Each structure stands twice: as structure tokens, then as C-alpha cells.
């Protein structure tokens, strides 16, 4: 269960999530400070640790469009936030899965800031409005990466397997 701490419209770009001027900062340990930097109130709340882990960002369609910068996924992951979006742009979706960011595709989601959401397999329940919304499964091709706990762990496994075959 998590509270909606930010409600966003459609076509939220990775420039919005992680402005280009901070792109020289790359490490997942350092990117969280610039999360939604130009949304100054939200960024300040994050930095003040006023947003508990598990809090939810709700977005309309095409969340994470634009640049492939992985910082956009790692910066949200660093605050352990959940993204519930009506749809997600391809590269961001893959980056999120690769880094283990909790993302949920929920095509009809309706929620306002302050609402409490419960994310369960196959559905999101808005406890404040009492409405329930079906979720779309993440691409099945990526399940093995999710199961392994991210792409680094999955690739490490594959490296060791291929070494064993030699």
C-alpha cells in the first residue's frame, strides 16, 4: 500500500524526470538528488526524506518518453518509489526492469494525489475511491530479468553459465 505523492500528465519525458544538465552524474548512488529536479517542491520533499519508500507516482500515457538516460530510472529507484502509469515508453520500461524499479502498467488508472493505492498481481486498487483497475503484464520476454532481480544479476548468471559450457 502506498500513497500517491505525485500525479502527472501524459508524455512525461526523461528530461522532466532527470534534467539533461545533471547527466554528468551517472552512478545510481548519486542520481537520486536530482529526481524531478525542476518540480522543485517534490524534489525538496524527496531530499528532506518526507516521501516514504513505497509511495506512488501516477502518470498518464507514455511515461518516460525521450532520452535513453538510465538516470531517469535509477533516480526514482533510489527513492524506492512505485510508478503506476497508463502506458510506458519502451526504453524507460526496459531501463526500469533492468534496474529493478517497481513499475505498473495500468491503462485505466484513476487516482489523485493523497489517494492510497494497493498494488496486487493483475490489479491496482484505489482504497480512497474504492475503484479497482486491471494492470497489463510487463513484457513476458523480460520476466527472466525481473525474476533474477535485475539485468546485472541476470547477465552475471549467463556469464557463469557460458563459462561452465566452455
Amino acid at each position, binding site marked *: 500500500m502506498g500513497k500517491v505523492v505525485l500525479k502527472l500528465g*501524459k*508524455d512525461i*519525458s526523461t*528530461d*522532466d524526470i532527470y*534534467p*539533461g*544538465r545533471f*547527466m*554528468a*552524474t*551517472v*552512478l545510481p548512488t548519486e542520481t537520486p538528488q536530482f529526481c524531478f529536479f*525542476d518540480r522543485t517542491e517534490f524534489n525538496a520533499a524527496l531530499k528532506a526524506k518526507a516521501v516514504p519508500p513505497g509511495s506512488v507516482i501516477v502518470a498518464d*500515457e*507514455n511515461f518516460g*518518453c*525521450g*532520452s*535513453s*538516460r*538510465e538516470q531517469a*530510472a535509477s533516480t526514482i529507484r533510489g527513492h524506492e518509489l512505485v510508478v503506476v502509469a497508463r*502506458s510506458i*515508453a*519502451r*526504453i524507460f520500461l*526496459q*531501463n526500469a526492469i*533492468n*534496474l529493478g524499479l517497481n513499475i505498473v502498467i495500468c491503462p485505466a488508472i484513476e487516482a489523485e494525489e493523497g489517494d492510497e493505492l494497493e498494488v496486487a498481481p493483475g490489479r491496482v486498487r484505489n482504497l480512497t475511491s474504492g475503484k479497482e483497475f486491471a494492470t497489463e503484464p510487463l*513484457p*513476458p*520476454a*523480460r520476466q*527472466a*530479468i525481473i525474476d533474477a532481480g*535485475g*539485468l*546485472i544479476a*541476470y*547477465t*552475471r548468471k*549467463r*556469464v*557463469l553459465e*557460458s*563459462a561452465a559450457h566452455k
Partner: protein
Amino acid sequence: MGMTVVEKILARAAGRPAVKAMDVVEPRVDLAMSHENATLVINQFKEIYEGTGREAKPWDLSRIAIIFDHRVPAEGPKTASNHKLVRGFVAQHGIAKFHDIRGDRGGICHQVLPEFGYVRPGSVVIGTDSHTTSHGALGAFSFGIGATEMASIWALGVALNIEVPPTIKIVVKGSFPKHVGPKDLILHIIGKLTAQGANFRVLEFHGETIRKMSTSGRLVLCNMSVEAGATSGIVPADDETESYLREEAGVTEKIERVLPDADAVYERVVEIDVSKLEPQIACPHTVDNVKPVGEVAGTAVNQVVIGSCTNGRLDDLATAAAILKGRKVADGTRMLVFPASARIYSQALEAGYLAEFMRAGAVVMNPGCGPCLGVHQGALGDGEVALATTNRNFKGRMGNPKSAVYLCSPAVAAASAVAGVITDPRTGGR
């Protein structure tokens, strides 16, 4: 069942007789490109090998390309140190396709790759940059990924768990009117499809207009396909592709064309006639907010930017220089020109275009990505408006969330620089 170009490429790269849309494959990678974000790729790559007892060595050094372009020369110590770290890795492993900050062989990655013959029809090109879609202009399947995914490719040599994307066929007919070209066409297509209309899909370009188009123009189309959400844009290889690779890229070996089957299955077909197309403008703050120039003409412009991986090639600079010839950039408007590569810079210098820009009052910068994404020079002030031949106009894109960016062709940009307001080059140009 017939296959599209991308299906054929992926079938071969995955060692299968055939694939269809939504099959899951692990294609071998022909070229793995990174820019400054190689810093993060290297970090993630080393992490993969932690505790494995295996040496962290990329699978095939000849297939890795690293090009510095985003913040060149370094704007500060952090970038400079990132550059230094990548140079160290390049030297340690011996990566030959490395393009440092140089006036002879540097430039923007999406220009350097075609110019140096690194891209071939039928190949799989993957880059840690969303505009890697560009290389579909040469008949390659080419798309952008994040840094961790690139680290995985460096380790394994394959792209993991790729879903074969469905293909949208775009058929273009007609001849462009004067002062209308590939940039107007792709902006029109993005406006029509919307910013997510091609998410997880490929745009495959066909038709007489495409066949007659230069590789430079095709690069514009494929470059911006990602702005409709596409995984990739692709132009099936033809005589033009071959002559570009021979004459511009110096490729001598056999070039194989991968073409779609006549009965290939497309998700849908979009037909466009460009013979009455007007100059197009993408208005703030999304690339699909596209209008004919007439609807926004007269909007005051503080900064005009001509360049980038989208429109910083020699033909773009020639178009702009011809419009600026004998005229001045308007008072109150700044004009920045950044050619897409060192080679183009040098050619534009010899052709006299750069002198023309400077005489008109424009500032000619070195090749790089900088102003396009607000990371290096050319930032906007609060409330300012830019008109740019670049590829994105998201809020804050040019370094300031309190500014606005309009996107256009080089002809519109040059005519508008002279007028100081957004101007239709058919009436305000020459």
C-alpha cells in the same frame, strides 16, 4: 509468411529461418555504440563480473564504438574526469572505434557512425542513445537502450530477450515543394502518429519520395522516428545507400541489401503525399504538437539553433547559408550553428558556409550535442524562446524549464533568424 526488413535482420541475427512480430529473440550485435555514458556502462560492466572470478573483458572489441559528443570539450571537472575514465578503459582494452574530442575525426555519434562506414545494411546496431534509430537510414536495425543493457551486451554479445517489433509501413509519394523537406515530413508524421503512436514498433519507409531522397534526408526521418515512440526507423537499402557507403564512407567490401518480402505483414500502412506539404513546426512542449508554420509565424525568437544529429549535415548548412547570404541575423536574436561532425565542419568551411554564417552574425560552434539537450552551451534565459533544427522540445530541454523550444527545418530556422520571428521561408526566405 513474408517478413519485413527488421524481421529478416532479426531472424538472421538470431540464427533462425524466420521470425514474426512479438517473437522473442536474442540477436547477436554487430555494433554497440556509446557516448559519454560509457562511464556508466563501464561501471555496470565491471559490476556484472564482481564475484564471478572471470575477467571483465568485452566480447568483441572490434564491435564497440565510443564517441564523445554530449559535452565536448568538457564543460567542467566532472565531465572531464568521466572522459578520462573512458579513455583509460579504451586504452586498456584497445578499442579502435573510439572518437575522442578531435577536429579531424570527432563529431556527433549518429553522424560519425555512418561517415566512418561502421553501419551496414542488414546489421544490428545498438546504442546507449535514443536517437540510435538514425542508422536505419542505411538499412540497419538500429535502436537505443540504457547503459546497463549495454553492459550486458558487452558481456554476452547479444541483446537479451528482444521482442520482434511489429512494423508500420510509411509510404511517401510526391515531390517536396521549395523550402520543404525531410524534417517537415517527419514532423508531419509524428504529429499524425502522436508521441506514442509507434511505441514498440518499427517505421519502415517506402515510396518514390524516399527512393529519391539522399541518405542525409533519410537520417532525418530515422533519427526522429523515436519521437513517435518507435523502436527504430528503417529505409530498405538501395542504390543511394550503396553509393553513400562507397563514396562517403569509403566502404569497399560487398554490400548486401536486406529487403522486405512482397507479402510482408505490416501492422498498418500510412500513406503520405508531400507535394502540398507546408513547412512544419513542433510547438512547445511535445514533439507531436505539430502545426504548419503559418499558425505560429510572427512568434518572437531569442535563439535560433542549427545543428545536431538531426539537421547538422552539409545540405542543412548549405540551405541555411543560402538563405542568410547577404543578410543579417536580426537584432535581439542569437544564432548558433553546430555542424554534426568534424568532417562536415571542414567541408562547410571549404564551401564558405561558415564564413557566411559568421558574416551574418551567427556563432559557429564545434560539433557536439550540447545545446540540443541543454548540457553544454546555448542555454536559454527565463521566458526565452528558441527555434531549433534539433529533435526535442520537452520542457527544460534547452537547459531551462522556464523557456520554450520550437522545432523546425534548417530553411525555417535561417529565414526566422533574419526576421527575428518565426518565418515561412517560402515568403520570408528567398
